[in-house]
């Protein structure tokens, strides 16, 4: 399914130039005192929302920037950022 994304540096580009970087799960857990459960959740567990989710992307075949966008996983379209997610 086709996808276009807005790179904060390069603007709108074909989705195939980007690498998906996973669901946005908040900041990386601090090494100190981090439990197995915390690392498991951060590294592997997903919500798999059917709808709008905030996620990481990298403009791999472009400027190399990592950034976050909101995308609807049912329509596969980028949507304006929702702060409550």
């Amino acid at each position: 399914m086709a996808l276009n994304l807005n790179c904060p540096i390069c603007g709108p580009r074909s989705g195939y130039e980007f690498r998906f970087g996973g669901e946005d799960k908040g900041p990386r857990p601090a090494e100190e005192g981090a439990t197995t459960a915390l690392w498991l959740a951060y590294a592997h567990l997903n919500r798999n929302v059917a709808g709008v989710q905030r996620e990481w992307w990298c403009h791999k075949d472009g400027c190399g920037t990592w950034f976050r966008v909101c995308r609807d996983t049912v329509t596969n379209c980028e949507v304006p950022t929702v702060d409550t997610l």
Partner: protein
Amino acid sequence: MLKRSTQPKRLWRSAPLKPAYDAVVIGGGLHGLAAAYFLASRHGMQDVAVIEKRYIGYGGAGRNTAIVRANQRTSENVPLYKEALDMWPRLTRELDFNLMFYNCGNLNLAHSEAALKAMRLQTATAQFHGVDSRLLTPAECKALIPALDITDRPKYPIFGGMFHPPGGIVRHDAVVWGLAKGASARGVHIHQDTAVTGIEVQRGKVAAVQTSRGRIATPRVLNAAGAYAAALADHLLDIRLPISVLTIQAMVTQPLKPLLDHVISSGGYHIYANQTLKGEIATGAHMDRWPNYTTGTSAYYIKHQAEALTDLLPCLQGVKFMRTWAGLADMTPDMAPIMSGNDPVQGYYQDCGWGYFGFKSCAAAGKYMAQYMTTGTCPEILAPFDPGRFAAHRLMGETAALVNYSADN
């Protein structure tokens, strides 16, 4: 003259939705129908319901490219897939329904020394488990498929191949219909157009399932909702799984005279293909690079597929694609499935994360999940598939390369 009957003969009966069942299976796909069939046929469970949101076979069950084989990579996986492969002829007889098992063999191509080395390990693992799998030279590959270009002209020249004679193709719709027929004949109720919307838990145990057509009391439920299983587990029970859902596409060409007698696949080109009994070349392999639930196809992959196919098999140049479609694949970080039960909720079982291996495995997975749900104890063969392996970071080595849908690679 053929006599046309006025009433189409149904393979399975419709039944009223009862307020209570011994077991409820979520999803009328391959794994749900297989588990229900074995619950009724092997464990004498009288009251089993399969709850299907759309119609049976709506998910991956009706969209896959029907390839079966047993030469997986690891010792935990091979025995399960071997048993599943061995079951097709027996199930055909048992269900009294032709599953059209065509054991034409699978040829997997290597395009580098490194790929050949990996195949050497994979064939050794297969042979250790009694699965027929052998390494072939490029000339031997060409003897099997004369249309292959084994010169050094292609972008990725052929270094050798791995041939797995007992694998092949099974008619995927027939598996859905046959299992539904067998399950229904043994008393299983199949409820289509019915969505599971909730799971009631009382004192840590499953008590009931809520559906779009009412509440069903039950002590055990199997989540076999395929690509929707992970979202469902999160939504209904707050159980998060290490799954990413990606769209996977497939397509068929116009029918041709016989030219491809085996299933052929290539990791280098990211492609697999076989010739159907109608003569079409059925081909696929690509997943979208990002999770989505669209089941949409794209020009990008049709172009890729055409380029790869014609580089491997130049005689296909100019042949037209007739049809393209897509379904969803529930991928795990190690490309091995998740099967578990009674954790953290007693009576809750899950069988998912099959990615694009869920057709070939369904008979064995259904058989053992049925045993698990009857006895409450995990059968030994399923123990490695517990999701606890991700917490321990002991991922299985079923992936050939790092997966790109997971954030940690």
